[in-house]
């Protein structure tokens, strides 16, 4: 595996490499944290903490390993510690008011052909986002890593420190639960 040049430079204390890495990972990392904690203010705080932790720990990072997985593992550990401290129930339970809450993701415009397509697609994504936000943390996490970050099962297993079989079963159950929620809310597949 080729060692990321920016990671090597950061290990030597290069400030430009730090800037490059933050720029490269900002969207993925922020999205991942937001999917886990669901509150933008908390995700922002964790985003900062994650990069400070990166600076602190970069020398102990084994350059032959996958930096993505290492970065997301740091972020995950901080997010889980945060959830345990602030909202212990949120690791297993959906937020009480998450069902109708608008997320930051819902406000992002998307590219579609006509105003009607645009409206329908936005509606579908809002429904999926809302359904996803209502799932337990472990399910939201595996969904965002697989579908939004496009990590494969082995990479997800590295990030979550879980066996591949557990990740697969978690992914299957998260999809089943998501579908169940969508179908319960929109009988007859009207959400599609």
């Amino acid at each position, binding site marked *: 595996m080729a060692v990321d040049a920016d990671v090597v430079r950061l290990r030597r204390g290069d400030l430009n490499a730090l800037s490059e890495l*933050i720029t490269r990972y900002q969207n993925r990392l922020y999205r991942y944290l937001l999917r886990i904690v669901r509150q933008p203010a908390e995700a922002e705080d964790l985003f900062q903490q994650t990069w400070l932790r990166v600076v*602190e720990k970069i020398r102990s990072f084994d350059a032959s390993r996958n930096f993505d997985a290492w970065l997301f593992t740091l972020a995950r550990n901080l997010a889980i510690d945060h959830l345990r401290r602030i909202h212990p129930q949120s690791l297993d339970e959906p937020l009480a008011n998450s069902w109708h809450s608008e997320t930051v993701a819902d406000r992002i415009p998307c590219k579609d052909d006509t105003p009607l397509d645009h409206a329908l697609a936005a509606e579908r994504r809002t429904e999926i986002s809302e359904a996803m936000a209502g799932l337990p943390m472990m399910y939201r996490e595996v969904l965002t890593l697989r579908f939004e970050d496009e990590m494969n099962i082995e990479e997800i297993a590295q990030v979550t420190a879980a066996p591949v079989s557990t990740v697969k079963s978690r992914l299957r159950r998260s*999809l089943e639960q998501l579908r169940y929620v969508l179908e319960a809310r929109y009988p007859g597949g009207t959400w599609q």
Partner: protein
Amino acid sequence: MSEHDKIRDLLALAAADALTSAEEKQVAEHVRSCIACSNELGAWRPIASELHRLPTPLPSSWLVQSTLARAEAKLTEQAEHDWNRRVMIAVVAFAWLLTIASWPVFHVVTGRFGGLLEPQLSHTRFSYTWISFAAFTALGWLAGGVAAVMLAVRQRGERRPA
């Protein structure tokens, strides 16, 4: 569990592209001959497709800039800390070298250099030489320690935000 049930359990993962190539082959073969599973897979596809297309929430530029500033400050602080540690190690090593090198010098100055070479030293001469030397060394190290503490206190004061 029948073959059909086993395949049915794999359909959600098939839509998520999370199967091994052997499992994929198994599912593809089964779906060709089973309408129920084919429909089921068809029901999973739009969910997977929409999940791939969820909009990405973007961090604000303020967040990115402030993160960069904080991380850079930490990196600089760490580099400074490392440099100070290296300097401290070098200074301590130099101090020890100087201390060891000063033994013969000390004896030359006190006119007792020859005594060092003698394997059997008299008790009095030994005490006089080595107690003086130990006092001299201890005084040096004490002065160095006090200076280091004063420097650390001053540095901490400078770091504290105004």
